[in-house]
Structures are given as structure tokens and as C-alpha cells.
């Protein structure tokens, strides 16, 4: 084995660690990626719902609602996600179990997936509130006045006027939030949920091929980002149809 072919052989053996079947760890990484994507999608969706409610609360709510929404967004955006995740994760599961016990039910194990989605969704909601609030304020005011003049009810106006015409203004911010959501799933590694980063660390720790696995995982995250960028560009083109393109609008 001491001839010139030893280097490709070694490289080949290292790369074989990435194969998807059991001697390799590729399967684990892909499973982690799937979990990460599930959590990111769920958290982003929940963030959108909270964000829409929050934005409406901040813009049209009573003074009390406005202040409560303000407190929510300020605190969530000022405290590190890691601390919030720990607090909500422990406090949330503890609270649910205590209520269940008081009501006379068995304790339940909250699955990591659900807990992760709820916790990250709560964090995303604060940022989404700000993005959507800005987008709604960017709608030309005449559109909303016209809708009111036609006697539309608030929900109808939201469905027909506000949400569609705020979309082009909200999309860049929302795309940013989606990317943040995919990357924030990595934080759940700290509470022991086996998403991509934790799976990577386990694989790397077992095989000692740290560089290989961390770079492979990085490439997977990067692929999500680049793929999302392409998708967002298409959605944005669709949402801005009939409007001047970003470059023309700026100049």
C-alpha cells in the first residue's frame, strides 16, 4: 500500500463515511436535515400567524393591545434565542405537565419536534410582527380608504386588499426570516434535539472526521439558502407583477 495510490485511497475512505447506508453517516445527516426543515417550516408558519396578529394588533389595536404587542416584540428581540429556547422549553413542558397533573391526567412527554416548532415560532413571531407591520404601513393609503369606502368588512378587506398588496413589501423581510428560521434550528442542538447540527456533531465525534462532517453539513445548509434564494426571487417576481422592478423603483 505504500505506493502512489495511497492518497486517493485515504480520501476515498474518508468520503465513504458520508455514504447514506449504515457504515457511512450520510443517512443520519439527511435525517437531521429533514428534521431541521420540518422545524423551520413549522416555526416559520407559526411565526407568520403570530406576526399577522401582532402587526394588526400594533397598527389597529386598542392602546392596551398595542403596548402588549410592543412588550412582546421588544423582549423577544432583545433576549438571545438560546436563552429563550431554554426558558420556553423547560418552562413550557413543565407548565403543561403541571396543568395536566392538576386536571388529573398523566404526565406527557412533549416531543422535541413540537416543542422546537412552538419555541422557534414564538421567536419568529416577534420579528414577523415588525416585518408585516412595516409592509402594511407601506401600502398606499388610498387603497385602504377605497376599500373602506366600498363598505368592506375588516376581514374581507384583509383578505382582498391588505394581505395581497402588502406582499411585495413584506417578501424581502419574510425571506430573510425564513433563512433565519433554517439557521436557528441549529440552536435546538443545545437542548438535545437531533437536527442536522447535532447529528453532524455526533457523527464527527464518533469518526473523528470533524472537518468532513462539519463542511458537509455546512454545504447542506448553504444549499437550503441558495435554493430558497432562487425560489424567493421567483415568488417576488410574481408578487411584484405590474409594479416597477426594484432597480427602476430605486432610481
Amino acid at each position: 500500500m505504500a505506493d502512489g495510490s495511497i492518497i486517493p485511497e485515504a480520501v476515498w475512505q474518508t468520503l465513504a463515511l458520508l455514504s447514506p447506508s449504515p457504515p457511512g453517516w450520510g443517512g443520519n445527516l439527511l435525517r437531521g436535515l429533514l428534521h431541521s426543515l420540518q422545524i423551520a417550516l413549522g416555526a416559520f408558519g407559526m411565526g407568520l400567524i403570530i406576526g399577522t396578529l401582532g402587526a394588526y394588533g400594533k397598527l389597529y389595536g386598542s392602546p392596551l393591545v398595542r403596548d402588549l404587542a410592543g412588550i412582546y416584540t421588544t423582549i423577544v428581540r432583545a433576549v438571545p434565542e438560546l436563552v429563550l429556547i431554554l426558558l420556553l422549553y423547560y418552562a413550557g413542558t413543565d407548565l403543561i405537565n403541571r396543568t395536566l397533573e392538576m386536571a388529573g391526567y398523566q404526565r406527557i412527554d412533549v416531543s422535541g419536534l413540537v416543542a422546537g416548532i412552538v419555541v422557534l415560532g414564538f421567536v419568529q413571531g416577534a420579528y414577523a410582527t415588525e416585518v408585516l407591520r412595516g409592509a402594511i404601513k407601506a401600502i398606499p393609503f388610498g387603497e385602504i380608504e377605497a376599500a373602506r369606502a366600498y363598505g368592506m368588512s375588516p376581514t374581507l378587506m384583509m383578505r382582498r386588499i391588505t394581505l395581497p398588496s402588502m406582499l411585495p413589501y413584506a417578501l424581502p423581510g419574510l425571506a430573510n426570516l425564513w433563512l433565519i428560521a433554517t439557521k436557528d434550528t441549529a440552536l435546538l442542538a443545545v437542548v438535545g434535539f437531533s437536527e442536522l447540527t447535532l447529528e453532524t456533531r455526533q457523527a464527527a465525534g464518533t469518526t473523528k472526521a470533524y472537518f468532513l462532517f462539519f463542511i458537509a453539513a455546512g454545504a447542506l445548509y448553504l444549499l437550503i439558502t441558495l435554493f430558497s434564494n432562487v425560489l424567493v426571487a421567483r415568488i417576488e417576481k410574481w408578487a411584484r407583477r405590474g409594479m416597477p422592478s426594484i432597480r427602476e423603483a430605486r432610481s
Partner: protein
Amino acid sequence: MSKLIADTEIEIPLETFPIHKDTDPAQRNEWKQPHRIILILIGLALVGSAIFFLRWDWLPNYGDLILQGLWRTIWILCVTVFLGFLLAVPLGLAQAAGPAILAIPARWFCTIIRGTPLLLQLWLLYYGLGSLFPQYPWIRGSELWPYLRQAWPYAVLALTLSYAGYEGEVMRGAFAGVPKGQLEAARAFGMRRFTILRRIWLPQAIHRALPTLAGEAVLQLKSTPLVATITVVDLYSVASRVRQDTFITYEPLLLLAAGYLVITGIIVFLFRRLERLVPSRLG
């Protein structure tokens, strides 16, 4: 591929803490509204009940450790923001006006940093480089080895690179946003290129980036607890230490959250002062 990254505009920078407050007069603060007073009373009651009903007897034992952690968090934050900004200026300049041979690597650097989680970058540097270095005798023998064996150089490196990646993108926009006329006027005065950068281009770009810089500094503060995962003793890791030692979960975490809130407030306040120092009408 690089064309694609150039053309997709991902960002309207998220101002985590908008410095430009809403000028809407309806939203201006009036502290004497009745519901605000009630909210403040409820808040005080919550704080009071937290002080009386939760356990704080562990606090004196960990006083020194908390101060140490606080100092290290602030130290890491300041050093990485400063170094990261120094790195971000050339990154932004290369992307905004550099030749392709500089612009493309800079763009890829920013994309890679912004496209992967910080936790992963941190672990790649700490576990990856950390496991690579001991294999080379000349590194073990070098002067730097005592530092390379500790965790904090990796933490500082990872956080610096991360801040530079995000801020490089912001600086690109800021450099590109300075009006052409300013630069042409400078050139007409016969300034050398470096003088133009130092006197005209950089100051205006920094002023443009200042609100985003504050937001990025807050984001950087929120990333610092990640260094606890590679055994650097910062504010966050003190809380987990208390949890492990005494099995008290909520109190340290609540105190921690309050601590980060205060530091965030200080950062926002400082940047507001800084922004007021600069004359705000620029062409």
C-alpha cells in the same frame, strides 16, 4: 452561480432596534395613560413576586462568577464587533467597487457565512481546527500554542468572521449608496483614491450603515451565548453552571434574560448617542 447571488436581493436589513423611531404622533409615548400605569403596576408586581417567591439564596455564592461571565461577554462582544467591522470595510468595498478577482471571493465569503448557522461555524473551527493543530509539531512548539489550546481564540475568530460576513453585506450597500456626485467632486479636487476613501467615501458609508450597525451589534450580543458550547465561560454558561450545581432552573435563566435586556438597552442607547454626534443631513 455568482451571478445569481448578485442578482437576488435578499435583504432589506432588519433593524432589530430601529433607531429612527416612528414619527407617527399617534404612537408617541405618553406615560400617564391609565392602562400604562396598570401595566407598570402589574410588571412591578411580577418582579416583586419573582423576588419573594422564587429562590435567590444561591446568588451570593455565584456573585464573582457572574461578574466574570458578564465581563467576558462584554469583552468578546466589543472585540468581535470591532475586529469584524475592520474586516467588513474591505469586504464591502471589494463587493461594491473592487475588481472581479476581489469581488467574487468577498461575495462568496459573505454568502457562506450568512448561509450557515453560527453554531456550525463555531464547532467547525473549535473541533475541526482544534483537532488538526496538535498533529503538527511546529505548531505545538510555537509561541502561539498556549493560546491555541484554549477555547476563546476560536470563539473570537468565529464571531469575528460571522460579524464581518453580515456587516460586509451591509457595508456593500452603504458604499454603493453614497451619491456619485460626492465621489466625482472629490476626484475633481484632485484627491488621491485613498484620500477619497478616507475623507469622503468611508465616513458617509458608515453614517448610512449606522442604524443597521446597531441592530447587528444587538444580534452579535445575542450570538455570544453560543460560545458557552465550546467551554468559554460567559454570562450564559454561568446560568447553566448554577442549574447543574443546584438544580434551580428558572431563576438563573430569568436573571440572564434580564441581564441581556439591560445590555441590549445600553447598546441601543450608545448607538443613538453616536448617531446624534454625526450631522444627519447628507446628500
